[in-house]
């Protein structure tokens, strides 16, 4: 009993120290596991592994510094307190000590700067690439263009708006999935040229340790070489307006054989689509409205809203607007070419003529805009040709 009490008292007297130790362990522990939910991951490239190692080294150095400084401080707090009868010493400086604690951090910093510089120089060397992809950010989607193949496409968030607005179940890939991922081969050095159409975006895939700002009017360069096939996810990292949270990046890395197969399939699919577009005649109002609504919701609703009411003071309304209810060619023109100096993008190359016709028809007949007017692919082609 007596022993029990004294050990309890011992624990009580030292509880501050135990609590501190437990707290620190609890803080650091989740970080120790490499694939933990709460730490940077090692990633799948040589560079991302180096970055991870730098991160862990500097983290441990910081922990060691913190342990020493806070250790001394808490020791002092526990022992040099008036309540314990401590009398204050009167020393107030020592040149020797000042020099020591200036010099030691310098040595640690130099030791840290060397490997960091090496990795950085390697990361910035995008020369001798096997494949080049031009990445263009715009509000709020990514466009990928392979400079070595006649392939280019947009990549948009695949999560339905209903899930975001809590009207549908959120799946595991909530906000992390796109309609068309970027497809890359393993074992090849891929050079990314990164730019933007409107505001600044930032293309980030944590597993590659690649994050590069997409600046409108300028082209940035970065690279990666992935050894492990798989699907890697990231997202835009630079505030780019309203739907910044909703422009994920998905990269599907395949073996070189599978990649070649994908290229072949993609080219064939493109040819078929082109043929179908050419063969397509005039569509009925119902067809146009049904397709138009789908396109509107993926491409237009982020700004102009599902309701067509826009955002007062920021994005103009389409519902009841002059543009969407009067002159048809002017309406087509603005959708095809965008409006300079505003957030309105040019959709002429993002959508096919029949898709453009559908969405313009939809805008002219939805939300009580009932003009009853049909716009066909031929009308769009005429406006495009007339420029």
């Amino acid at each position: 009993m007596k022993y029990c009490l004294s050990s309890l008292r011992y624990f009580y007297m030292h509880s501050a120290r135990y609590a501190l130790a437990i707290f620190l362990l609890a803080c650091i522990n989740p970080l120790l596991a490499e694939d933990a939910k709460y730490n940077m991951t090692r990633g799948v490239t040589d560079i991302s592994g180096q970055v991870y190692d730098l991160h862990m080294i500097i983290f441990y150095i910081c922990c060691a510094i913190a342990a020493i400084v806070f250790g001394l401080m808490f020791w002092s707090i526990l022992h040099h307190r008036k309540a314990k009868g401590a009398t204050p010493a009167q020393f107030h400086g020592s040149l020797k000590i000042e020099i020591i604690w200036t010099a030691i951090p310098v040595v640690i910093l130099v030791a840290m700067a060397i490997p960091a510089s090496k990795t950085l120089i390697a990361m910035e060397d995008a020369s001798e690439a096997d494949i080049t992809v031009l990445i263009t950010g715009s509000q709020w989607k990514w466009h990928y263009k392979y400079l070595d193949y006649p392939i280019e496409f947009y990549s948009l968030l695949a999560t339905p708006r209903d899930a975001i607005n809590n009207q549908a179940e959120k799946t595991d890939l909530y906000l992390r999935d796109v309609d068309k991922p970027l497809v890359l081969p393993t074992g090849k050095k891929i050079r990314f040229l990164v730019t933007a159409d409107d505001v600044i975006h930032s293309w980030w895939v944590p597993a590659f340790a690649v994050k590069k700002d997409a600046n409108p009017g300028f082209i940035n360069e970065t690279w990666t070489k992935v050894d492990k096939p798989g699907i890697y996810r990231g997202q835009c990292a630079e505030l780019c307006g309203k739907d910044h949270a909703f422009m994920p990046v998905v990269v599907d890395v395949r073996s070189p054989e599978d990649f070649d197969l994908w290229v072949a399939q993609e080219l064939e699919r493109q040819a078929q689509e082109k043929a179908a577009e050419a063969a397509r005649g005039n569509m009925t109002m119902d067809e146009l409205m049904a397709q138009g609504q789908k396109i509107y919701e993926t491409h237009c609703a982020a700004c102009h809203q599902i309701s067509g009411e826009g955002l007062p003071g920021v994005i103009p309304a389409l519902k009841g607007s002059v543009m969407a209810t009067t002159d048809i060619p002017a309406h087509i023109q603005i959708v095809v070419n965008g409006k300079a100096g505003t957030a309105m993008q040019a959709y002429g190359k993002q959508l096919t003529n029949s898709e453009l016709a559908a969405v313009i028809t939809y805008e002219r007949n939805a939300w009580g805009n009932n003009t009853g007017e049909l716009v066909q692919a031929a009308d769009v082609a005429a406006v495009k040709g007339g420029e």
Partner: protein
Amino acid sequence: MSTENSSELGSELDHHQSDDHHAHDHKPHGITRWLFTTNHKDIGTLYLLFSLLMLFTGGILAMMIRAELFQPGLQFVDPHFFNQLTTVHGLVMVFGAVMPAFVGLANWMIPLMIGAPDMALPRMNNWSFWILPFAFTILLSTFFMEGGAPAAGWTFYAPLSTTYSSDSTAFFVFSVHLMGISSIMGAMNVIVTIFNMRAPGMKWMKLPLFVWTWLITAFLLIAVMPVLAGVVTMVLTDKYFGTSFFDAAGGGDPVMFQHIFWFFGHPEVYIMILPAFGIVSSIIPTFARKPLFGYESMVIATASIAFLSFIVWAHHMFTTGMPVAAELFFMYATMLIAVPTGVKVFNWVATMWRGSMTFEVPMMFALAFIVLFTIGGLSGLMLAIVPADFQYHDTYFVVAHFHYVLVTGAVFGIISGVYYWIPKWTGVMYSEKIGQFHFWCSIVSVNMLFFPMHFVGLAGMPRRIPDYALQFADMNAFISIGGLLFGLSQLIFVWMVVRCMRRKGKKASSQVWEGAQGLEWEIPSPAPYHTFQTPPHVK
């Protein structure tokens, strides 16, 4: 440190003070006293109360942000409004809460610490305060305009803040100009006061560290606030007058915006921390009952940090695509800041070493400052490592980092200063029970709020998003609870302040704290309306 003949000086002062009090104390009453005051104590009080109001304004915005982030999905606000919240939260906290609080403390304490009767330019002092309520009324009124408040982040990167912004941009630019004018005038006043109005014998190397850190801060303000004024003006002309500073189509460069902004922005973060260093350097010796360790090295370290702050700005922009040589330069320069900052922390610990410490509330907050500011400093060191920064940049790891240095650094520094000096201002001791309660509530909740942000950031959650992937849900719920508790904890602080202002509490002596040294502790508590009309002699 400042005076060694305290008892002799004290009695002489008391005599003068009581004379002053009866003969010259003709201050107007009611609202005109506060509108037209040129008294440094009144203006200091106004600044501090304004800053408290802004702390809660910015805090309410933060509560709305954390409410939205409590669960994945959009619950309370739409994404456009969310961006307005984060933007204005940042602007209000930086320009409305932290900076005016420091100017308030400077107004109150610098004349008392250097033995001056008032600030050197009292009318300008009045003006520099009264600009602020108008500036923030303009800024906050943008919430009620069509298109809403500015939404491009407190860093308002172009072209999101120019071509793609709402028309409240013009109001935002005007309010930032007003804040800048106010800050520059405040800084000029501090410099002129310290240069010209020190009491006889108050030599440079006898100045209390709070005065030194504020002097250096004032020079930083004068150097960089015009740069901010320049960059907001360029935003204005790009948006409304057809210039193309930041538009490649007209020969400009959006990245140039970031260079100019951060040339202001990095010294700005030291503007928000150096005076806190000064406060802590006053408090630690008092409660350790031991002189500050390494006074000269503290001054040199402060000046070095200020100098380095001008050559590290691009570490905020490593991902913008810079030449590798520039990245290396900014990495090395940034790492170098750890050296003088380290010297400061080591000096504080050495000051405590073999002291005779007591742990009243100012000391508790100062100790928390040292530990938590150092955590923020260490994560700053991690951020300096460029390859790792590519992963950390624009994630919650950065949010955690700058909230550690700004909330548990700057704001805790300010709070410890308020507890330290409020007996001198009001003449009554704050309630130690309420103060300790405030401290413990704050210290627990602030770490619940900001510590887990490191983890979600490392795991890949970007900042400035209203909605996030499901793997971040648990941590965000926890963070939001911490945020709510931290916000509520600050109501205890208000309770403490109100009690003191209503003179509820034990009467304070003139020295207030057993270990306190310096001129401000030799005048009566509360400090009379006019002090040091006859300059004291400092030996």
